[in-house]
């Protein structure tokens, strides 16, 4: 018995020493002397999201007529409000008078909301509204050729650029009934009908990645992008557009994921984690080659503005990781101690999820992050808000 006790004592003492050494090494590597742990705990806000965005992906937000509008599988509205740690009320908008529908896309063009609905290609419908409550049906573009018996042709996305409405249509299936290559058409809405944007030299077989302009009211430059094509011109119809993909170092051959215009610059985001600015320069933003989303410029203390760019997942070997922030050429991964997310709860808000879109309301200083939160926890939401106080950001809070 005594021998057993001695052996155990030695084993325990050695284990304790090993644990102490391990703990000491971990401690030395993990102590953040400049981080106030319990002061941060004491300041944490309670996430106050509504069930509207709980485990629900949000794709777009815009402000119109005294309300914010957010798109999920439905369109929701809320009276314009700042960041709040108390629950915020969002109400479903009955597009076209329907209480049950599937929203494909919704955008604000000037003073008109356009909403595209439909469960499948045969039920697609487009509505417009100038007040958010009364909706008018809008005629859809029709395919110029003859559809085969197994072919479908339908709008699946809307874009707003330069005060104009654009729509992507997908032609799917081959004329003889076999599964064929899909083709994508970009349409321009004239106010009474639709014209195909003529910028693309060949019909894209990859999705449209966006249309952007350098102004909503008096645009002088438009950019049109599909996954592998990038065109620029001064006409909203794309009639004078030419390919500018060669203006960027090593952009040719890459997959474009998003284009954007913000802070006086055009940006091109690619699926391999690169960001290109219209100056022609590029930055490898994400070393793990996560796709980058649209870029947005937001106010900051010093410098006076920074840009944010969300990340998506490449569905192969990396998960999305929130967003990057900073100035072009030196973007860093957002975190609780970084520029915009002045909040302890960053880790349970937009971190580690795909941040699909940002919207900044410059009038009311409110920033929204549209997130794909997954379905792993009811604590995760699809829409978060942050407010600029004039000197700092309040921190993300769930909507």
């Amino acid at each position, binding site marked *: *018995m*005594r021998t*057993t*006790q001695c052996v*155990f*004592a030695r084993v*325990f003492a050695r284990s*304790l020493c090993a*644990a*102490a050494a391990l*703990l000491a090494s*971990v*401690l030395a*590597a*993990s*102590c*953040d*002397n*400049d*981080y*106030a*742990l*319990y*002061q*941060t*705990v*004491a300041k*944490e*806000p*309670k*996430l106050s999201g509504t069930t509207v965005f709980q485990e629900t992906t949000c794709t777009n937000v815009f402000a119109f007529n005294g309300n914010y509008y957010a798109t999920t599988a439905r369109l929701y509205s809320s009276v314009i409000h700042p960041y709040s740690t108390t629950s915020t009320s969002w109400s479903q908008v009955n597009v076209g008078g329907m209480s049950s529908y599937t929203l494909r896309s919704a955008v604000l063009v000037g003073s008109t909301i356009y909403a595209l609905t439909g469960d499948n290609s045969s039920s697609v419908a487009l509505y417009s509204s100038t007040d958010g409550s009364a909706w008018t049906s809008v005629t859809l573009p029709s395919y110029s050729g003859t559809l085969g018996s197994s072919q479908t042709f339908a709008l699946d996305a809307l874009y707003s650029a330069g005060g104009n409405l654009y729509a992507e249509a997908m032609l799917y299936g081959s004329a003889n009934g076999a599964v064929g290559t899909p083709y994508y058409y970009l349409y321009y809405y004239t106010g009474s009908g639709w014209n195909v944007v003529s910028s693309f030299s060949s019909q894209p077989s990859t999705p449209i990645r966006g249309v952007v302009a350098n102004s909503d009211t008096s645009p002088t430059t438009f950019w049109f992008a599909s996954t592998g094509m990038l065109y620029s011109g001064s006409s909203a119809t794309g009639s004078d557009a030419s390919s500018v993909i060669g203006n960027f170092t090593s952009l040719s051959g890459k997959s474009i994921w998003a284009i954007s215009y913000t802070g006086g610059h055009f940006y091109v985001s690619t699926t391999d984690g690169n960001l290109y600015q219209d100056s022609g320069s590029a930055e490898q933003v994400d070393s793990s080659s996560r796709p980058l989303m649209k870029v947005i410029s937001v106010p900051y203390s010093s410098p006076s503005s920074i840009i944010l760019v969300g990340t998506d997942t490449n569905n192969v070997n990396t998960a999305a990781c929130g967003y990057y922030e900073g100035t072009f050429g030196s973007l860093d991964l957002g*975190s*609780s101690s970084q520029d915009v997310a002045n909040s*302890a*709860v*960053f*880790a*349970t808000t937009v971190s580690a999820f795909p941040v699909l879109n940002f919207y900044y309301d410059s009038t009311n200083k409110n920033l929204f992050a549209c997130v794909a939160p997954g379905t792993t926890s009811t*604590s995760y939401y699809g829409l978060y808000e942050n407010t600029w106080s004039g000197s700092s950001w309040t921190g993300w809070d769930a909507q």
Partner: protein
Amino acid sequence: MKPFGAAAIAAALLFMPLAALSGEDQQPSQPEPPAAGAPAESPVTAEQTNPFLPGEQTIGLSVGLQIPALMYFPTSNTYGSLSQLDLGGSFSFSYQYFIDRGLAIGGNIAGAFNNTIGDLSVFTAPLGFTTSYWWSAMPLEFSVLGEVGGYLSRYNSKGMLGPFAKAGGGAYWRITSGWSVGLQAYFWFVPELHFDPYTDLNALAGYVETSLGAVYHL
């Protein structure tokens, strides 16, 4: 200090005197006088009847609840709301060696977590050296314990280390010759100390551990 925290600490500290009284009740307060004509006997003291002898060893395991009890910021002389932290859980593993009758020294490693109001989590893992005193009122056993050491905390992907102290005790039922099981209550003192120029970030945190413990007597 917030009422809830004070109550929890008070409960932990009150626990031991009551247990001590219970144990002492089993001992005569005064030795019986020898019968007339009988040879005089030495008085039997509590120390001499203590069954925990030098050289004996114990190992202990516990799981329990971790109750936030203190969040104080000395720079601003303010208290943080304890409702910012949820009720959490804890576990520990300990070893003790008796160096004198009833008196043991040893080591303890533990871990505890508390979720926060914003769905984050504070994890604290202390490692320390213990001194304890044990006594018995069979089949009950009692102990009071003090511990000093260090801790590692993780929160929001940040790490913190610092000194650690723990005090409290337990009451156990000797269910077999080798095993005792019982209830324990300890106050964890977790100071968050920063070096210059960040001393304004200092904080004093505390928790009350209430746990179910099992002690194996080697």
